[in-house]
Structure formats: C-alpha cells, structure tokens
C-alpha cells in the first residue's frame, strides 16, 4: 500500500508532518552529528500507519546489509543491484542472490509496488522526484560518518520497517564488537588507511572513528589532509605511520604507489596490512568485521618492538566472517564470503 | 542613371589602398578596370558593391548614396562576382544559379519571373546541359560559367565582375566577354577587372587605370589604351595593332627597365 507521507532531507521541512512531530524533532539530541540529514523515524511513530511495510525496496547496498539483519525476508521486495555484484556488495553473495534487484530507475521501483523505499545519498535527483511525485514513502539516508550516526540509522530503519527490537539487537552486537576491539593499553598507534590510488579517509569519516576506537591514531589530520584526500608520498616519508592499511583493489595486486621503491626503504618502520575494501564501503554490520580486523592488527603490533619490525604483509585472517554473532535465527548462517588470500 | 564615385580613399593597416579615386560607371556601357597586381582593383570593386566602406568619398547611384540604401535594394541593383569562385557545398548547378535570385525572391518559393531569369542566365552562359550536375564535380571552366550564370540570374542593373575569365578556355573566355558586352547593350552598367589587355580592348567602352591606388587614366577605350599609359601602369612595352577582322590587339612585348 502506498502511504501518503514521505521523508525528506531536512528535519521539519517536509510536507505532511504533524505539529507534534515537528515539536518532537526539535528535541533530538545533537548526537545525530553535525551532518544530520536523516529524518528521524519518530515521524513514523507519530503518524498513523497500519501494518509494518511488506514491500520494501532498497536502492542502497549499505541499507541492504542492514535489512538483511533487521528485516524479515518476506518484507523485502527488492534490493539494490550493487548487492549482486561481488565487488560492490556488503552482503554474502549467496544470500543476496535470493532477492530480486532493481537497477534504480523509477519505473522498476514502481513496478514492485513498494510501500517503503530506502535510498542512499547518491540516487539521481530525477529518480527521487519521480518517486516523490507518486507519493511513495521514501527514506533517504546519508553516508554515515560516525558509529553513532550509523547506529541511529539502524534504529531508524528498524523502526520504519516495524522491527525495532531487531535494530536494537544489531546495535547491541555492534557495541559488543566495539568493546571487544578496544585496545588494552593507552598507546595510540599512528596508522593510515590507504584506498586505491592514494585516497585516504580523514577526519569526520567513519574509518577515522573506527581507527580511534581500536587504538590507532589516524595520521591523515597530522598530514593536513581533508575529509577525503590524496596522500602525497612525501608526507608518508617525513612522518611514517606505524601501520599502513591498504584497501586497494583485489588482495595481492599491488598498488602503484605502494610499489614505489621508496616504500621498501621504510620497511623497517612500517607494517603494511591488508584491509578489505568492502569494510570501507558501508557502516552498519560491516563495522563489526572492520573493528575485528583492526583490533587483530593492533594486538599483533603490541608484541613487536618497533625497531625490530620487519617488512611484512599481513594477510587477512580467514576466520573473519560476515554474519557472526548476530543471533538472529531467521537469517541463515552462510559460509560467508572469504577474501581472496594474498600470495 | 550613372554610378558615380568621387574621391574614394581607403587606408587598410597603414597602407593607402585607394587614394581619391574618381570615376563614373555609365549604364549601357562596359568599363574595364586595369592595373598592376595590388593596384587596388578588387578593393575598388568591393567598395562599389557596398561591401567596404571607404574612409572618405561617396559612391552614389543617381543622387543616392549606395551605403545608405536598404541592403536588399542594393543587392537587387548591384551584383558582384568575386575573384575567388568559392563553392562550399556540392549543390546542384540549378540551385547554385538560383542563389542569384535571392534579393528578388519572396519569402517562399520562386515565381515564374525567377524561373525565367534562371533559365535565361543558364542559356546565356551555355550551362543548360549542366543543370542537374553537382557544382563541385564540374571542371574549373564550367564552374566559372555557372558562377557567372548566378550573377546574371539576378538581373542586376550594375554588374561588377572581378577577373571572371580565370579558369576558362579561350572559347569560353570569348563567350563570357561577349555576354558581358551583351549585358551592357541591354542596359546594365558593367565594370570588369581584367588582366588580358586584348580582352579589355574587345569589350571596353571606357577604361579606368589604377596604379598604387590612384587613377592614372580614365576615359574612352581608344584614349586610354596607349603605349605610354600602359607603360606607366604596368611597366611593360606594348604593341597595339589590329587583327585582319578589325579587332584591336594589345600585346605586351617586354619589360621596361
């Protein structure tokens, strides 16, 4: 059933909001972050809505991942086509293949007769407007730049689909993973995450916070880089980090910049570790795997005095799975997608 | 009515191209413009066609300044055949000749008068058999005749031609010259820039000689085509004679040091 309300970017700006709804919005604590654009699902609770949505269409792979954990599979009418692409998916492929996909055009979405559409920040405007014109319930999510923002998105999604307790459960699992990954000492190891062709996540990104929580210091601010920036090798040489996480391309394929001869000179000072690119795409459930990986590297570093560290590549441990510890019997435990092992 | 130009001067990029050029194009007569390369002949024709504005001086038809005329009216009265026979697109010969009717045509389509003028022009230049051919596939000579047909189709009162014989064979050269003479006989005023002095002798009623932008001689043919004036204009010694049929011949012999 197509509802008659929609969610917009800015709180309080949309049409169809009841006055009590607006008043409640003003009380939202600032933890939602400075880039709050997510419409709080309190709207859902103040507006009379019949049953929980049974035909959800998601256009965003990160939302797909959350839905896999909090939604009843029968509720999902379609997920995004990225989830069927092994390179872009944040869900185990075998699980994703059980759901139909749309390529994101309005007519495909409409053909599924959705009662809720979840879209990320980069859906083309004409598509958004086409859906809004048909008065379909539309939930727009921003890129989560902090753990709190991601958890609140999970709560919002869970509330919107009528499964708030599952959202709470996923958030609890995330908290548990964060606690388990917290470092045992106070030292903040200088570290850097290096995506393909030199892109480095800086301050105010999720990766930055995850590094901090697992005992690292993101060197990008020290280098003066912005939120997303390209790192010149000179900075790396002048003040080398302790750990360099490489998330470029398929594991085993060396990055052009990292094969630079000058990096070999630093081999006694820097540890280079693989970091699955998938962990950088989305927040949500991927954060659990991300902090596991980060803490694994952190713990291994504790045992090595810096001056004796040698150049080595640390392969990703095969024990990291995607859907562990979530305890939801309705989601079948798959084998999980293994990362390709480096040679 | 005559086209009179009085004191035409033009300075381009520091060079005085035309300097106080004065003369008259009379209707019904052919005026040939002679002069060495760079003497300013083409520039004078451009001014007479209204394409260039002289720095000083006045060009008038009757007592109307041609540069004050309505653009289309001027186009109807004066036709220019430029030296470069550009043809940019491979259009039908008939379409090309029809372009000459542009100043006369109404907004839509062509009238009988238009068609008649086009047919007459093509017949006069021996192009009728070329009607359906493509302009760029023609030989140089054929293109020359077709371009002349274009200007004839416009039935201008003043016909200005800049070296129209360039790529024509002798037979067609004579045809074009005779056609231009015929235009004058039927009432148009014709001004032609020519290089071949015998050709000039063949059709000229009046001759205007330019040297370095100035008029050094202007008058009826026989008064101007003299060895002295031509030596001054071109720096060559000429021999002037008569053919057995009585046509005047002017033959350059050698350079004068």
């Amino acid at each position, binding site marked *: 059933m197509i509802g008659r309300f929609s969610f917009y*970017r800015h709180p309080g700006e949309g049409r169809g909001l009841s006055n009590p709804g607006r008043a409640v919005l003003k009380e939202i604590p600032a933890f939602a972050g400075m880039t709050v654009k997510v419409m709080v699902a309190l709207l859902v609770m103040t507006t009379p809505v019949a049953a929980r949505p049974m035909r959800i269409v998601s256009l965003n792979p990160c939302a797909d991942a959350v839905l896999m954990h909090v939604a009843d599979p029968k509720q999902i009418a379609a997920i995004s*086509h990225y989830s*069927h*692409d092994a390179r872009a998916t944040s869900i185990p492929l075998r699980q994703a293949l059980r759901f139909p996909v*749309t*390529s*994101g*055009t*309005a*007519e*495909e979405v*409409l*053909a599924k*007769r959705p009662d809720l559409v979840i879209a990320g*920040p*980069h859906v*083309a*405007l*004409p*598509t958004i*407007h*086409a859906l809004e*014109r*048909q008065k379909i319930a539309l939930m727009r999510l921003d*890129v989560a730049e902090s753990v709190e923002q991601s958890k609140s998105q999970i709560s919002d999604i869970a509330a919107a689909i009528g499964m708030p307790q599952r959202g709470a459960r996923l958030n609890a699992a995330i908290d548990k993973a964060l606690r388990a990954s917290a470092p045992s000492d106070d030292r903040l190891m200088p570290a850097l995450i290096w995506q393909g062709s030199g*892109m480095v996540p800086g301050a105010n990104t999720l990766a930055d916070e995850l590094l901090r929580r697992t005992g690292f210091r993101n060197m990008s601010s020290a280098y003066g880089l*912005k*939120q*997303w920036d390209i790192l010149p090798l000179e900075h790396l040489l002048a003040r080398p980090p302790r750990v360099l996480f490489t998330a470029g391309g398929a594991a085993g394929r060396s990055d052009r910049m990292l094969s630079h001869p000058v990096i070999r000179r630093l081999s006694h000072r820097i540890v280079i570790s693989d970091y699955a690119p998938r962990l950088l795409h989305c927040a949500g459930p991927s954060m659990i795997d991300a902090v596991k990986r980060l803490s694994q590297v952190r713990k291994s570093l504790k045992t090595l005095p810096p001056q004796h560290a040698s150049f080595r590549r640390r392969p990703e441990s095969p024990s990291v799975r995607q859907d562990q510890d979530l305890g939801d019997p309705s989601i079948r435990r798959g084998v999980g997608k293994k990362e390709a092992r480096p040679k | 009515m005559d086209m009179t130009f009085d004191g035409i001067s033009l300075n381009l990029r520091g060079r005085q191209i035309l300097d106080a050029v004065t003369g008259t194009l009379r209707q019904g007569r052919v005026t040939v413009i002679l002069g060495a390369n760079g003497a300013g002949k083409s520039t004078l024709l*451009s001014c007479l*066609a*209204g*394409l260039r504005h002289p720095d000083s001086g006045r060009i008038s038809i009757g007592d109307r300044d041609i540069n004050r005329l309505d*653009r*289309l009216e*001027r*186009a*109807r009265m*004066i036709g*220019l*055949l*430029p030296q*470069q026979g*550009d*043809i*940019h*697109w*491979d*259009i*039908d010969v008939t*379409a*090309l000749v029809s*372009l*000459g009717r*542009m*100043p006369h045509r109404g907004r839509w389509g062509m009238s009988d008068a238009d068609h008649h003028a086009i047919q007459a022009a093509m017949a006069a230049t021996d192009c009728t058999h070329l009607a359906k051919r*493509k302009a760029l596939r023609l030989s140089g000579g054929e293109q020359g005749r077709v*371009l002349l047909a*274009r200007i004839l189709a*416009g039935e201008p009162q003043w016909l200005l031609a800049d070296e129209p014989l360039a790529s024509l064979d002798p037979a067609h050269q004579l045809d074009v010259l005779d056609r231009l003479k015929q235009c004058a006989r039927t009432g148009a005023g014709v001004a032609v820039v020519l290089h071949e002095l015998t050709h000039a002798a063949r059709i000229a009623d009046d001759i205007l000689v330019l040297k370095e932008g100035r008029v050094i001689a202007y008058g009826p043919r026989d008064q101007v085509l003299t060895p002295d004036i031509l030596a001054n204009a071109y720096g060559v010694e000429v021999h002037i004679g008569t053919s057995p049929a009585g046509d005047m011949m002017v033959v350059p012999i050698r350079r004068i040091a």
Partner: protein
Amino acid sequence: MTQLRLNLLLLGALLAAMLVSLLSGKVWVPPGDWLRGDLASLIILELRLPRTILAAAIGAALGMSGAVMQGYLRNPLADPGLFGVSGSAALGAVSSLYFGYAISALLLPLFALAGAAIGMSLLAMLAGRSGSLILFTLAGMILASISGSLTSLLISLAPTPFAASEIVTWLLGALTDRSWDDVRLALPVMAAGMIALAFTARSLDALTLGEAAARSLGVDVRRLQWLVVLGVGLTVGASVAAAGIIGFVGLIVPHLVRPLAGHRPSAVLLPSALAGALLLTLADSLVRIVPSASELRLGIAMSLLGAPFFLALLFRMRRELA
C-alpha cells in the same frame, strides 16, 4: 529522393522509434495496459512518455544546431559544442550540484540555462562586432576550455569521492526518470532556439558562395551571427539542462542526411532535426534495453556510436584520396 519524401520517411521512422521507446525499459508493459489507468499507465504516461518526447526534442534541437553550425562555418566537421555554450551550461549545472542547490527539481536546469546565457554573452563580447569566423571559433574554443577547466576544478574540489562521482555521472548525460516538469522547462527554450535557427536558412544557402558573394546578395552577416549564437545557445543550453552533455548528434546527423537532402544548407535543416530526433530516441531506447546492471549513460552511448562513424568517414576519405 525529393525533399518531401525524405522528410516524410524520417518522420515515419521517428514515430516508430518513439513507439519503441515507449516499449523500452526493464519493466515490460504490454501495450494493451498502457491506458488502463493504474501502475502500468503510470509508468508509461509519467515516466516513459516525457522521456521519449524529451529525447526526440533534444535530438531534433541538436541535429538542427549541428546543421546550422556546419552551414555557418562552412565546415562539415563543426559541432554545436564548438561555441563553448555546452561547456558553460554544464558548468552552471555542476555548480548547482557542487554547492548543493540541486534540491529542487528546477534549480539544476535553471543553473544550466543561466550558464548557457552567460556563455553566449561572453561569446558575443569576445568575438566582438566583426563577423569574422576565425575570431568566433577562437572565442568559442576559449569559452569551452575555460568552462571545462572550471568544471574539472569543481570535481577535484568535491569533498568526498561520492560527490565527485555524482558530478561526473551527471556530466555523462542521461534521460533517466525525466518528468513532464523537465519537458515543460526545456521544450519552449528549444523551440525558441530552433525558430531562430530556422531563420538562418536562406543566409546559409548564400554563404555557399563565400562571404563576399553572400553579402552582395543582401545577407546581413551581423544579424546572421546573432541568430546563430542565439539559436545554438538556446538549443544546446536547454539540452544540457535536461540531459547533461550529449555529443555527436550535431556532428553525425547533418553528415548522414546531407547527401540525401542535396547538400544545400537550408535543405539539410529539417532532415537533420528529424534524423537527430530519430537517432537520440533510438539510442535512449537502446540504453534501456541493453542487458546491464544499470542503464548505460546516454552520453557514453552516443560517443560509442560516434567512434565508428568517424572511422567510416576516415575510410571513405582515404578511398577518395587514393
């Protein structure tokens, strides 16, 4: 083939192509359901029909602009993009994306049109009052290169890789999910532009003989220049506002129809419009039918079509010169 027959043929093909476009999409909607009044006709009437009309209109506008540009510059390799107006319109649109003004459905197209208007004024200022073609072409190239650099600058300054990718994706051109609002905005502007272009027809014919002869036939070259700038600016500006940058239509289509229409510049205008509409409608149908995860970008599809065209042109020229 006569003019009339050519135009009727193209019109018929265009109508068939528009039908194909209404049938194209990842969702199959059988023709019987089109007017049934529920979801199926929603898809057809609110999504596919405006898209089809927009594709035909943009194709016609770009085809006609290309024909006029080639006639005006007397150069069969001229393209409406040479004036730099598509670059400045794109810069306007990209600015609205960059500064976050693209919230309203109308703002991005309006910014694009503003960019086109600024581009046209700059062109007029740079080229000056002479009708010189070289000056004009240079002014257009300067404008195109400045807009291109500024657009690249905005892409490089984008705060996140996602924002950069959003801009780049828009630039590649697409008609996905356009609505009747887009049609209402773009169509009048394109129509005005095409009317201005239509008025150049006779002067373009006269230009076949070169500028001197044309002027002696009464052509007002200054007025012609304004009409060309206005016509190309409006048509290209509206096209970019609606769909991003779509190239090659203005270049390919006049070439294809010129031998059939008889080479006279004025005779090429209407067939170019019809053939351009046909080409773009077909291309837009193709990007929806091609089996790929998401729609192929329309600008890319046109570029892919353009490359073999140029190869064919090259081979033909080699054969003629050999």
